[in-house]
């Protein structure tokens, strides 16, 4: 709980470009990534931005494709806000917040309603057109909530999908041509395939105080900025892949444009930082093996 004075102090800090922890408006807190933290998942990552901590685990299963898209795999998103993480996560509020963030992640990764403009190749998840495909479950867990949760979740999602290893399947036609062919999973991790995660965007959340935009707000700063927050998903090339406004205050189009420009400038840098940490860890693991 922050007092009125604290809130004013935080908001003025953003407006003047000098925040409580010494950062300027467009500075991120230190980013820490760790891959393969959940052994029972097919891919996972833990992401820390300052004190905010999230965990994303990806599990895959063989299932039937959606009727409208017979030759595509399916990706599900869910986010759980554990009541341990923040006092605000007690009761129903946490459910709604989790569903909101999961929807945001889904839109930024998968694109429009047809999942065609998305950043994942869903066709690569098809096993037998019309009858079998991979269902990928991306499950996020908020462990400590100190602001910028969606940013952290999107970074962890990108890292976990980079880490993802999909087992190889062997399809053998059954004796009776009427029956469905048999599917056999190959347990050998050597044969597993990875998914191209290089186009997955990261979310940059911006807020503003007195016309000055700021990124990576702490929980206190989020409580202090009465204005709207804008979540912008940006990929490594600086393209906008998703946009979502949060908060009860209206927004001017000019301010929005300024925020988008800042997000497009910061997004590719953030992607690069995530990539660097991912490759370093994947490389280290390979050498270890």
């Amino acid at each position: 709980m922050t007092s009125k004075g604290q809130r004013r102090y935080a908001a003025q800090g953003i407006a003047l470009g000098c925040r409580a922890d010494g950062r300027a408006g467009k500075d991120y807190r230190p980013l820490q990534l760790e891959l393969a933290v959940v052994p029972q998942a097919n891919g996972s990552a833990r992401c820390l931005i300052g004190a905010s901590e999230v965990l994303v685990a990806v599990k895959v299963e063989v299932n039937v494709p959606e009727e409208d898209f017979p030759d595509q795999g399916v990706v599900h998103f869910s986010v759980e806000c554990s009541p341990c993480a923040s006092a605000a996560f007690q009761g129903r509020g946490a459910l709604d917040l989790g569903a909101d963030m999961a929807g945001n992640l889904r839109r930024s990764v998968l694109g429009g309603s047809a999942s065609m403009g998305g950043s994942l190749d869903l066709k690569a998840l098809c096993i037998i057109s019309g009858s079998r495909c991979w269902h990928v479950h991306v499950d996020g867990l908020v462990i400590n909530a100190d602001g910028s949760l969606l940013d952290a979740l999107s970074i962890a999602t990108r890292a976990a999908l980079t880490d993802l290893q999909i087992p190889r399947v062997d399809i053998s036609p059954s004796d009776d041509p009427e029956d469905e062919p048999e599917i056999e999973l190959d347990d050998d991790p050597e044969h597993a395939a990875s998914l191209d995660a290089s186009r997955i965007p990261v979310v940059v959340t911006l807020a503003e105080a007195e016309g000055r935009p700021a990124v990576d707000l702490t929980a206190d700063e989020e409580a202090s900025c009465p204005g709207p927050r804008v979540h912008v998903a940006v990929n490594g090339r600086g393209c906008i892949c998703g946009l979502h406004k949060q908060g009860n205050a209206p927004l001017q189009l000019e301010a929005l444009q300024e925020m988008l420009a800042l997000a497009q400038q910061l997004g590719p840098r953030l992607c690069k930082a995530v990539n660097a940490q991912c490759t370093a860890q994947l490389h280290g693991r390979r050498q270890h093996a």
Partner: protein
Amino acid sequence: MQSVPFHAAERPLELLSNGTRLDGRSLEEFRRGIFLSTRSVSQASGSSYVEFDNTKVIVAIYGPREGGHSEGLYEQGRLQCDVSFAAFASRQRKQTGDRAKMSKQNAYEKELASQLCTALTPAVQLASFPKSVVDVCCVVLESGGSDLAVATCAAALALADAGIEMLDLVAACSVSRVGDQLLLDPTTDEAHREGGNLMLAMMPTANLVTSIMLAGEHTSAQATEGYRLSSYLLQPLA
């Protein structure tokens, strides 16, 4: 034996011929059969019925009523939105038996409800009904594309009909990106082939954005063009 759903017509493969869309519109044109009316539900404090060709939506406003204690205490008033699709609203009948499909549908309706709430709340003078709740119930009778945008327009109209104090009406529209083309106010068939979409809700007189949502990869030029297009074209709608 798996059940085989019956579809009246296959989805079209081509959406454009000679620069016009299947229903004869140009790229930057709203659907022509726009019908707006209020007072369609007699029991509600305010209501509206809106048609955009095949998209048909009823919105009823109840309240303001006393906020329940279970929902926590709020100094200001609150909007509580609910969106539901009629069982016969889409090509696929709404699933009532299969639990997995039902929960997916519920999740979709909930998501739309929260987006509707974001789009409307900035326009409503919440201080005019402190500690109370206004219920916004929205039923989509037929889902013909751009459902959320149509529901937002209808809900703003119903709120005004209910006499809830507002800063301005809210108008909303969607733009779909199909290939390199931007299609305004897309139908379901068009949205089925989209690579990205944008939904913008605005208070047109104040020229303020109440909600913006974008999905799918856009270059900044496409995004700018998208919201320039939607903000410009929203003016006559309001």
